[in-house]
């Protein structure tokens, strides 16, 4: 199963096995990864599962849809590599994905 590494804002890394077809957010919540709130439960309606995708994985993770861009307006410290983790679906190509979580989601 693809491995995903979550790095929290203090630099602590947690590597977790995710299922192909699940979202990065679901993988984080199921495994108790901190700093991902996912208040709306994955409906792309709250911007509280904001992550920064590691530069090396930016292309593989893809770019936000216009709906996701709209929701990112509600996040803080949005950067060019910002994504909502509920909108990144795990594929075999994302094995090794690294994302960093922001200090605050809401």
């Amino acid at each position, binding site marked *: 199963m693809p491995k995903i590494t979550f790095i929290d804002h203090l630099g602590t890394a947690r590597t977790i096995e995710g299922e192909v077809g699940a979202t990065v957010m679901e993988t984080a919540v199921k495994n108790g990864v901190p700093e991902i709130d996912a*208040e*709306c439960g994955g409906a792309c*309606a*709250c911007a509280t599962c904001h992550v920064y995708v590691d530069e090396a994985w930016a292309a593989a993770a893809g770019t936000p849809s216009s709906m996701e861009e709209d929701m990112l*307006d*509600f996040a803080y*410290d949005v*950067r060019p590599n910002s994504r909502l983790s509920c909108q990144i679906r795990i594929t075999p190509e994302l094995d090794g994905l690294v994302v960093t979580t922001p200090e605050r989601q*809401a």
Partner: protein
Amino acid sequence: MGDAATGEAIATDALIIGAGPVGLFAVFELGLLDIRAHLVDILPKVGGQCAELYPEKPIYDIPGFPIVTGQALVDNLMKQIEPFAPTFHLGEMVESVESLGTAAAPLYRVTTDAGTVFEAKTVLIAAGGGSFQPKKPPIPGIDAYENESVFYAVRRMDAFRDRSILIVGGGDSALDWTLNLQPIAKRVTLMHRRDEFRAAPHSVEKMRALVAEGAMDLRIGQVTGLRGAGGALEAALCRNDAGETFEIACDRMLPFFGLTMKLGPIAQWGLNLAENLIPVDTEKFETSTPGIFAIGDINAYPGKLKLILSGFHEGALAAQKVHRYVFPEKKLFFQYTTSSSSLQKKLGVAG
């Protein structure tokens, strides 16, 4: 009407706090038992999270509806409760709940932030994740400026007259207030993280026209800090995607970053709380305070699932106990809507 102006309280058998799906369906279950309800919600519309967070998104686990959107579910519930003529108090937040009665005959004085006062025999808290409140940006030191020079809502436009206002955001709230305050402000600057807006296209066009004629400013970037002593804002420190930093001089800031759910004043009502949830029994969904019930996502009990369908069940059972408080002398007979002529009469469908 019971409001601060007249000092009269609205007397009601049941007051429901929260007009989400669970609060709405509780109107139905109470109505079948001849109990009329008033509802209070902080949002200016009914539907709670269904209407605010995911109106267009499908829900797949409402019994009998293989697929229904959040808004369609709310619309259907409103139709379903129509025969029971509930009274809505929208855009108001319940601030205090104070007991005037006894355990056997409860009575609660409930006051909202708009000054509406209720005297309710029973209170059903169907507040979901709490009240929707404006999201506060994590700008260092912002607390010191709040309600002095940083505001999350415009209560009185006049408070912004002749001010240099920085409005942050790209949705309807940000654009509407930009357009409304621009004529009376000294200067309005709108800042958004990108040069695309979610707001209604005609508002965006109007804003761009004002920028083109030099009547206001549009800047692309994000606020990273605030400057000014003693809560008096002088400038916002900003950064754009290219990493360049700049300052915007302003003495008022209005950030519009959407809404988030906060437990809010519920914590001050003297109820038992467990991790921001209200413990209830699973027979009546009553709290440890007689006459106050909690249904839907806000309650906690062993095995609780935060599903809309669970909230519907909880409302039905709570209504039975509400009936005993409201009509202590009446015996309740269990009836089906399919076969009971008296229930059908109440629903306005008697043949």
